């Protein structure tokens, strides 16, 4: 039974990867098409305050300058949602097969974390149209799933005593949630850096950027997303410390994984301060957010694989 379910889970994941691939290609085509279309468009008119005469309420700032219908984008987004549903189904099946949360080893964690990254991307669309990040997110999910299935696949095994704790559910899930927001934030910060270059006239080739919000708007979006990630990360740190106290007898011991979690927290704390420091807004703080997310990836890959530490038993 367990093996059959695990097989179904894997089939769902492979299907999700196939659909992510198509979504990624379509998102990329969409960006290419935007570049072509952007040439024929007049420059974006900034939203303006109503004239002094008469009575008026300030107009809402238009989200992405000229609102148009991007067919490719809509198809790609629909495909992403489909892939995500398959992805979630595969992850849940894995959990059912193992009769526990599906994030107890590197393979399972790559399934769950990438599902949460895409999930946050999908949910965030309700709040703000960030579909222009679709190529980045679907590509990211594809790569993570590829590494997870090819490099780290393990059969379902029971939890070792050290992982038998409800903190496994809380700590790891919130860490993934934080990672998802940082991933989105890093995407926005990259877009912001590109946009800032384009606005400075140094990037004439990337015309699709004209269809994205301006650099300041991208920076504000990135900040708001990263700040949510930071709160989740802080919680992860605290929950991890409580669990460490239960399992290892001390809440903090500078284990390699703890060290990197601390480093990431410090980088993002720096990012938030940079946003409030004169001379550090804009591209500088964007770089900090990107470095922070790179450290998150480093923590989940290099530190897990090559650094000696107590988190190593999470099974590769």
């Amino acid at each position, binding site marked *: 039974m367990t093996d059959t379910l695990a097989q179904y889970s894997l089939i769902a994941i492979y299907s999700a990867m196939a659909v992510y691939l198509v979504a990624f290609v379509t998102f990329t085509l969409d960006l290419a098409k935007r570049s072509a279309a952007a040439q024929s468009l007049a420059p974006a008119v900034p939203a303006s305050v109503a004239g002094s005469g008469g009575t008026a309420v*300030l107009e809402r700032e238009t989200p992405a300058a000229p609102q148009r219908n991007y067919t490719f984008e809509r198809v790609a987004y629909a495909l992403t949602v489909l892939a995500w549903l398959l992805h979630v189904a595969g992850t849940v099946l894995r959990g059912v097969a193992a009769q526990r949360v599906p994030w107890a080893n590197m393979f399972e964690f790559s399934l769950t974390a990438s599902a949460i990254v895409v999930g946050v991307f999908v949910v965030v669309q309700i709040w703000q149209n960030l579909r222009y990040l679709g190529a980045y997110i679907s590509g990211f999910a594809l790569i993570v799933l590829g590494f997870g299935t090819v490099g780290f696949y393990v*059969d379902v095994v*029971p939890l070792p005593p050290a992982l038998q704790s409800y903190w496994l559910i809380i700590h790891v899930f919130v860490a993934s949630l934080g990672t998802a927001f940082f991933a989105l934030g890093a995407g926005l910060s990259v877009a912001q850096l590109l946009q800032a270059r384009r606005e400075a006239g140094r990037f004439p080739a990337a015309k699709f950027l004209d269809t994205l919000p301006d650099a300041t708007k991208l920076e504000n979006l990135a900040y708001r997303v990263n700040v949510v990630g930071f709160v989740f990360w802080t919680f992860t740190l605290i929950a991890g410390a409580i669990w460490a106290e239960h399992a290892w007898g001390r809440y903090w011991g500078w284990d390699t994984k703890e060290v990197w979690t601390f480093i990431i927290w410090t980088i993002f*704390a720096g990012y938030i*301060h940079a946003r409030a420091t004169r001379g*550090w807004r804009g591209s500088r703080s964007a770089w900090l957010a990107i470095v922070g997310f790179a450290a998150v990836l480093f923590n989940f890959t290099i530190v897990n694989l090559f650094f000696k530490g*107590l988190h190593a038993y999470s099974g590769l």
Partner: protein
Amino acid sequence: MSRPSDHIDSPAPSPVTQPALGPVGYLRFFWRQLTSMRTALLLLLLLAVAAVPGSLFPQRSSDPNGVIQYFDKNPASAPVLDGLQLFDVYTSVWFSAIYLLLFISLIGCVIPRTTHHLRALRGRPPRTPARLERLSVFVEVDAAGQDPAVAIDSARSMLRKSGYRAELFDGPTLSVSAERGYLRETGNLVFHTALIGILISVGIGGGFGYTGQKVLVEGQAFANVRLSYDSLNPGRFFSESTLPPYRIVLDDFSATYEEENRNALGQPIDFSADVTTYEGDGPGTKSTIKVNEPLRLDGNDIYLLGNGYAPSITVRDPEGEVVFSDQVPFLPSDANLTSLGVVKVPDGLAEQVGMAGFFYPTAAQLDTGALTSNHPDLQNPVLTLRVYKGDLGIDGGIAKSVYNLDTDELTAIAGDGAEEKALELRPGQTADIPGGLGTVAFDNKDPDADDLLQSVSRFASLDVHRDPTQGWVLFFAILVLLGLLTGLFIPRRRVWVKAVETSEGLRLEYAGLARGDDPGLEAAVTDIARRHSQQLGLKLSP
């Protein structure tokens, strides 16, 4: 000055040439530099970078054996790295310097901000600016025929209902000035103050706390006094009188291994240490310690951090007189509990005898002929012993590890190049020590059973901790989180409503100013304008 001068919300610096500074002036200058946003940011990033080497090099605090190995492998570079404190990064001078400077900078920032905030909490919202149209969000509404006093008064009560602190101002034109979101700054200050609280709690806890280790074989008791510990790491202000007087007996240790899932045969599923604890003269209390379930006793936390086998070994002299009999803990070296142990018999035999050996709970032969264990349970227990005679080196009064046999002054008499092969024993078997020195027996703990599953006692490795400020650290950590939530997500904003009388009648002006990041300011001000207009019965053109 409430905020550092280079905070984004502080007024831009004016390019004034500084007069020559006296000593006090310099001190003030350095203090201002230290408490500036730029310095805090730099120190934060420096702290992140400085923490990295601690994950690259083994640390004495978390991996002392790794440090020893590093010294063995890199005898040339290790002392240099040690001189740079790279094996003690988190207690090193340079790491401490960074975080202490950071916290001084933090305190220097938090104190003036707190006093400023306390004043702001009691004070009135600031006077309405003369030209509202200059603010980032500005809306105006034609209110011809309205009475300015009524309009402003209704604006004030509406703002107050929405949680604003609102104040009327006369001046040339009537206006209301309102501010909300003081909790943002409160959260911000709580966050930073709680960080200081964590640092102080950790420092105090480290000084008064202690950690100790004790290996306990089934049936053995442990009294909580300093000498009972195998090792004890006391904090700086530790005193023996702080050890609470209790006694723990390990009644039983049970390990459960996976037997059905073919992908995980032999993987541990559960470790349980059943103990009886005695406090004072009262009767014992039974409890169970598991890996994620420590025992909390008298302010001590007792953790189950390891386990293994303790074969019962009896050594007799040629006359059959017992000269050594003990359950000897063998330390596991792999997941299938292939374990290493040492027996030292200093007295009773013709010469001092030392034995070092392996214990295999489920012995199997490799192609090379060597033994290995392929399951952690006692399916085919085998004990092999290399035997040495000579000087054990324990008479000189120098403390020696019970887990280590120094063979420099010893001669191998079985195994390790000697004529005789190493002794190989199963539970219940006895072998002669070569040279007619006597016999060694591997006792079976459960001789009447059909199988050998209970033939060898197990030991539990317990860690005893006391951290008197652990609860405080948690308390401050929760404050950090709450402070973060309010400090980041509650918007702080100022809103003004002004009644301007013009030749064409009354005009109402609405304006808002964000203090800190506030993406919802525009929507909030337009919403206030809309609701207020509706209340006054004004028509708002789209």
